[in-house]
């Protein structure tokens, strides 16, 4: 499994789209700050507020990182080399999550530095800050689980991208609907919005919902991958 992990990390850091999407995300997030800054208490929260909108870039990344492995049959080489399917699945999830989190967190990190050292906003590291970081991380992991689920179900770049993007727009639509209050608690995209506005209803509930989403999505995706014939 360690060889697989090293291989996937090598692939991740040698892929043009990982760096390209990361930089594009930073640029787009910085532009969106012009709007979100007014709605949030500081630059980090403003940057966090934009994550749900920039989530589509994670979808593109996952479609390329996992979907192209299926359509190019490069994932097959792990199986033909004698690796366990369960190990392949686990490693693919871990590295995809790492890639996704880096892409999503990169603007937060850059904007955080700017806010601390250039604007002079102070972020106090207390229990609630740690809770916020934990919630943000879980919500991001859960957000990224959705395109990963479709990538393992469809095993195709195009379908993964299309279906995930449709759901992305549906979620955006729902978060702007009348029932946004309720929906934002049960979908990770909404949770991120609540975190950025510091209106989290219940930390435990959010974590429970995220864990439940992860369990359901990964269980189905894993079961499908373990027992399916590959092209």
């Amino acid at each position, binding site marked *: 499994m360690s060889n697989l992990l*090293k*291989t996937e990390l090598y692939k991740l850091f040698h892929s043009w789209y990982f760096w390209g999407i990361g930089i594009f995300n930073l640029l787009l997030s910085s532009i969106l700050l012009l709007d979100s800054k007014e709605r949030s208490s500081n630059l980090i929260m403003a940057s966090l507020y934009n994550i749900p909108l920039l989530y589509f870039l994670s979808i593109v990344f996952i479609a390329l990182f996992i979907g192209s492995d299926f359509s*190019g*049959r*490069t994932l*097959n080489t792990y199986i*033909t*080399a004698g*690796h366990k399917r369960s190990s392949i699945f686990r490693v693919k999830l871990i590295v995809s999550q790492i890639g996704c989190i880096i892409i999503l967190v990169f603007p937060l990190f850059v904007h955080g530095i700017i806010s601390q050292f250039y604007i002079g906003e102070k972020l106090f590291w207390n229990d609630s800050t740690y809770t916020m970081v934990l919630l943000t991380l879980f919500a991001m992991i859960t957000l990224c689980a959705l395109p990963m689920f479709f990538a393992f179900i469809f095993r195709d770049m195009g379908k993964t991208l299309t279906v995930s993007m449709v759901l992305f727009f549906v979620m955006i639509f729902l978060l702007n609907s009348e029932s946004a209050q309720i929906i934002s608690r049960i979908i990770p995209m909404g949770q991120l919005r609540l975190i950025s506005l510091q209106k989290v209803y219940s930390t435990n509930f959010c974590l429970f919902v995220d864990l439940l989403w992860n369990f359901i999505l990964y269980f189905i995706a894993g079961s499908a991958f373990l027992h399916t*014939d590959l092209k």
Partner: protein
Amino acid sequence: MSSIILEAKSLTKEYKQTLALDHINLQIKKGKIYGFIGQNGAGKTTFLRLVTGLAFPTSGTLSLWGNSGTEELQKQRKRIGSMIETPALFPSMTAYQNMEVQRIQRGIPDKSVIKRTLDMVGLQDTGKKSVRNFSLGMRQRLGIAIALLNTPELLILDEPINGLDPAGIVEIRNLLKILNKEYGMTILVSSHILEELYQTASEFILIDHGKIIEEISDYELNERCKRHIAIKTTDVQKTVLVLEENLHTDNFKLMPDGIIRLYDYLNDLETVASALAESHILVTGLSVSSDTLEDYFLSKIGGTKDVKSPKN
């Protein structure tokens, strides 16, 4: 120690409405080059996909080096190098980076193996050129290089010479022979280009409609592709009758293209000609010739569809 590397017992693969493999029984022995021959959809690739773990059998057992069972098969697959259908490559990476990915995942510590293998397939000078700019032949060579990276004991190549130019075909043929001779590598090659297989393989496995129709060595094949009189007439039925009743032989074969192959009277062409003439049969062709692997395969499956001639 057993010389059997791969053994399939009643191996069956069924898709929704198709029986891709129908109770295949097969043994692959160490140190030989096997040619896997079959039409499109005969079940060649399905069989190779089962061996390499990409697909699961519906029933039957598969063993590698005497080991069966999911866990054991996975372990044994580390001893296999394969290229199934198209080469699995990362288009945005260079040949070296593609090899590096495979080196890391196989846990090969020696980096110099990449250069050696690229040299072997003639891709040493590709530099920073990304694979997306490679020709079909270069991609094929890189696919073969990846399959060879771990110096496998069993090398499985599915249509390896697709897209290669004539010089490339000769190079790969020679490479396979060297690998077999010098490293004792067992090789299983499937191809449509039967003439190419004929020059490479020492054993032939003929598959049709998911069933193994014959396993034959090159020696046996040469025996069976023996000389014969090829008779072409305007009335096949009457010719068959003349052969049986006038020439008292049933040692002939009617081919799908209407030509009759007579394996008797090889040194007495005149007797055959006069017997046909006396029966007022118009003979349009009469000559002594011998079979090629392609002819032999066609005679076995009884059809001509989908099999490409190297001359075409």
